[in-house]
């Protein structure tokens, strides 16, 4: 992921035309150069924006993901028959062009910036940051600002029935979703969606649709810096959707079934904790890739106290799941902290 970003930078500089082998790394800045880092950035937003691709397959339009197989080795193609980004009221992708949305706000735009690492716990480094529109405090009393209001409980548990007990404050439940923390106003929350067909051995097996309505990613960022000749990063990914809808249709895209609907979906995920817990992406010599969220083994007690109280966490909340008029209630994963994660790809 981080390297994709690097590629974007390379692309942006126009060098791609004659660059065949790129070895790019972020090197440390001298103190002098660091002194020039003053929190200036490039803001951007999309005004009256709408986008639609893959639609109108009948006239030869195509957006296919190929190179996939099933376990028997037969070719499988994910054929996208529509991908769109539009304003609210897109009506599941039927009202896209002519129904635009502002992505980002003039006063709270998307932002590219070179930060002084000293300010964000990455000492002595210049840190490249891509950030989405910022968040407001809302009901939060400290950063990072959350959309979720929690009922906390003081809980006394033992690690063994009848044995030593411990008391601590834990999340008991989510009490509400606080949209006041979003800088994006309702009219600046996009609809987007994808319709795709699954083809197995050249035969269209089924059609699936996923639509997101009222989406905001406020408060997300990707930070990259160089460490030991390696690019490392931290990521905060925030995603709010008023509604997520999933449904299936027959192979011809007709006879669609009921929607599985997630109402008020909130994902807030922080990966990595400054330079103490970097996130890396590497490709091994055997051609497989590894994504790692660094281990926090062997740190000081002071670090652990800070990590468990203020460290990176992930919260996922769905206020209500419903299928065809039946409600299946809320789902919550709260204060999930990653002490270590290493995922390596391998051939199936």
């Amino acid at each position, binding site marked *: 992921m981080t390297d994709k970003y690097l590629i974007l930078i390379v692309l942006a500089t126009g060098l791609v035309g004659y660059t065949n082998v790129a070895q790019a790394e972020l090197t440390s800045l001298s103190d002098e150069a660091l002194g020039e880092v003053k929190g200036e950035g490039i803001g951007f*937003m*999309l*005004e009256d*924006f*709408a986008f639609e*691709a893959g639609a109108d397959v009948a006239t030869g339009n195509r957006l296919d*993901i190929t190179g996939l197989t099933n376990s028997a080795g037969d070719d499988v193609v994910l054929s996208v028959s529509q991908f769109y980004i539009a304003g609210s009221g897109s009506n599941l992708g039927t009202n896209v062009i002519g129904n635009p949305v502002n992505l980002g*706000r003039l006063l709270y735009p998307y932002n590219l910036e070179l930060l002084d690492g000293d300010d964000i716990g990455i000492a002595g480094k210049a840190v490249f940051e891509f950030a989405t529109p910022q968040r407001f405090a809302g009901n939060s009393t400290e950063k990072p600002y959350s959309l979720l209001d929690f009922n906390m409980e003081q809980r006394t548990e033992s690690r063994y029935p009848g044995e030593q007990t411990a008391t601590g404050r834990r999340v008991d439940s989510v009490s509400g979703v606080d949209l006041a923390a979003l800088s994006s106003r309702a009219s600046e929350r996009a609809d987007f969606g994808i319709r795709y067909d699954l083809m197995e051995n050249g035969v269209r097996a089924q059609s699936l649709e996923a639509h997101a309505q009222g989406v905001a990613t406020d408060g997300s960022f990707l930070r990259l810096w160089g460490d030991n000749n390696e690019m490392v990063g931290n990521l905060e990914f925030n995603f709010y959707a008023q509604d997520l809808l999933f449904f299936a249709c027959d192979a011809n895209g007709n006879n669609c079934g009921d929607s599985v609907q997630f109402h008020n979906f909130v994902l807030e995920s922080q990966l990595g904790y400054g330079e103490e817990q970097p996130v890396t992406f*590497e490709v091994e*010599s055997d051609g497989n890739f590894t994504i790692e969220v660094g281990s926090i083994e062997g740190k000081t007690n002071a670090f652990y106290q800070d990590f468990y109280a203020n460290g990176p966490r992930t919260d996922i909340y769905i206020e209500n799941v419903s299928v065809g008029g039946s409600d299946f209630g809320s789902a919550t994963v709260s204060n999930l902290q990653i002490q270590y994660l290493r995922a390596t790809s391998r051939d199936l």
Partner: protein
Amino acid sequence: MKAINRSLLLLLASPVTGFALEPMSNDDLDTVTGQGGVYLSGDLTINENGGPLNSDGPAAWQSNCTAASTDSKCGARIAVNTGSSSTGWFVLDNIRGRFSFEGLTLKTRTINSGFVGDGAQFNSEVLEVGLPNTLDYENVSLTVANSNSPRPTDVGFQQTDIFTLNINGQANLQGNLLVYPTGTP
């Protein structure tokens, strides 16, 4: 070198300026109010037909590079080493096809109103990139992969293709990209 087998044509033209040059009257000049801006059309073709070396180059470079071909000699390749401690390469491979658009505009614009109340407070200049209404793709493809070496011609080359993206036809879009400095200088 694989890249040599790939042609890259980048054509940027400004086709709206189809006027003969002639002196303007004073009256006419009065109506000119600084309509700055650039109108761009773009056409980018990568190795659509295999590139010049495919027909004139050494035999080793010649192969069938039709749209259906998956020959690894076809298409551009970008390989990025992922750091000193790793020996593998993240690869965008088999990049080819034709991508074109017409009507991308560039101009500066002062915003001091609108934007649901943000404009007046913003009161500043932006660079406005007017997005073209359509993007045309002609058999554009690229493969996302991981490899143990930068070039497929390296000894012991091994690569894991993750997926290939194929795009053909038209994408529709509208809107402006606004770019401006932020932060406190």
